[in-house]
């Protein structure tokens, strides 16, 4: 699997990342190598094998649907890089 600049740029978009030139070169090589190894999985015949996204086939452990107090807003906002009163501050979305 050859990873090129175009694919790296597409993956940057999907991952919401902006890599430095140095990181791009490094990840281009790394991902080519890793994905070539991973492509070997296609040697395995998995026809009619179901997919397993979880270790067990159990149902969820449910709890009673009861109203509870939420976390303290002030404490939550303390972790925000920027906030005002009861709100998170975000940069402008429209120029």
């Amino acid at each position: 699997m050859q990873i090129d600049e175009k694919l790296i740029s597409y993956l940057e978009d999907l991952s919401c990342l902006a890599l430095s030139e140095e990181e791009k070169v490094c990840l281009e090589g790394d991902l080519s190598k890793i994905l070539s190894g991973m492509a070997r999985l296609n040697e395995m015949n998995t026809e009619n094998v179901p997919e397993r996204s979880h270790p067990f086939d159990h149902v969820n452990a449910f709890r009673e649907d009861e109203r509870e107090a939420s976390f303290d807003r002030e404490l939550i906002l303390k972790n925000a890089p920027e906030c005002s009163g009861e709100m998170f501050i975000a940069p402008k979305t429209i120029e």
Partner: protein
Amino acid sequence: MLSGITALELSALIKAGKMSVSEVVNTYLTLLEGLKNKNNTFLAVSGGNALVRAKDIERKINSGETLSPLAGVPIALKDNISTKELGTTCASKMLNGYLPVYNATVVERLDQAGMIIIGKLNMDEFAMGGSSETGAFGPVFNPWDISRVAGGSSGGSAAAVAGGEVPAALGSDTGGSIRQPCSFCGVTGIKPTYGAVSRYGLIAYASSLDQIGPIGRDINDCAALLSVISGPDEKDSTCIMEKPFCFHNTDAERLDGIKIGLPRNYLDGGIDQEVKNRVLEAAKELESAGAVFEEFEMPMMDYIVEAYYIIAGAEASSNLSRYDGLKYGYRSEKAKNLSEMYRLSRSEGFGLEVKRRIMLGSFVLSSGYYDAYYKKALQIRTLIKDTYDSLFQRFDMILSPVAPTAAYKLGANIDDPMKMYMGDIYTVSVNLAGLPAVSLPCGFDKKALPVGFQLIGDTFSEEKLINTARVYQCRTDYHKRVPEGGAAI
């Protein structure tokens, strides 16, 4: 006096009135201050709070309140476990300065058991790595040889216990992250069955694989700690245990009737000869205690690591999308609009290994590649689970190496991710199948580096694994060895 002491021995000293809880906590805090974090194991130490809490526990013990067999014992936690009184960074610039607004369920359980959290431990960034070198705050040094890695991702937890800096610790295991650092540092650890311990408050890497577990000087400490932290939790819908573990020490000295499988292809090819010898010696020891061994061929060896990294990457790319620089965590100062804020905050806040795994995850989930990679890996996961199900029809447990080598030199594998990933070949299938496993020290190589082996069991067979590990540790003393220059209290 306390060098090499176990958590249960320490708690016995407290109960016998030979040391007060405050004295114990003070001793460890003084030790940590003196050590000046020489192995870079700790990311935070809880001084004042720990001493206040020690007084509180002391009062409860003196008034006869029943707590737990580990009451008064200090513990430290891998820094991906949320603590509302101590910052929780995941060893990442992204979460530097982040103070959770809630405790992880395991933290609440440690509190109820009367244990005292004295600090947070270094790790690979967001638990992504096998050497504890990818963190933003520098690598962890192996106390047996500081030019070598401690293993990862729970390297700080294993190295702190090995070095005597704390009697016990919690780590997390997504693909071997408790077992492998335990093997590299010569300590004991348990990766519990998926769903045995609540993940509430564990900062997620790969949610279908992550599991918190204990690290200690011996199996009895780990068993006691697992009893404390296991059990149902209404805050984690995947926590499927009906009640906490309650292990009974049978004092058995024999393993008659126990049938153990030995995967012969784990011991061919890429494994270091000395590691192989130590693992086979461990098997011999269990055999002489009455266990019966039978070799078998573990199928799909060539695909296990690849399937694991596809699934883990996919889950990581989704889990880590929450870090956007808005609600908590790092925010870039260069961003001029919302879109830039997301991209630049993530790019400046995450390290290279985290970015690599997010990109990999995005790739395997993307249109055109999903079937060939992600779907295929999920099908192989089914085959791995089916394989283990049929193996546990034949065997009570499986014995295997933990890693192909002992601890390697710092920096040796950091630029070769595929080489680093292949180091997980014996551990990742356990997580894919949700199984329990214990990692135990079984000797040293010629460089005097610890070697470990693991016992893998069927789901919720922790008691059987622990009893077998007890018999092994009654017959050997590798778990009692301490590194030269380790903490001497």
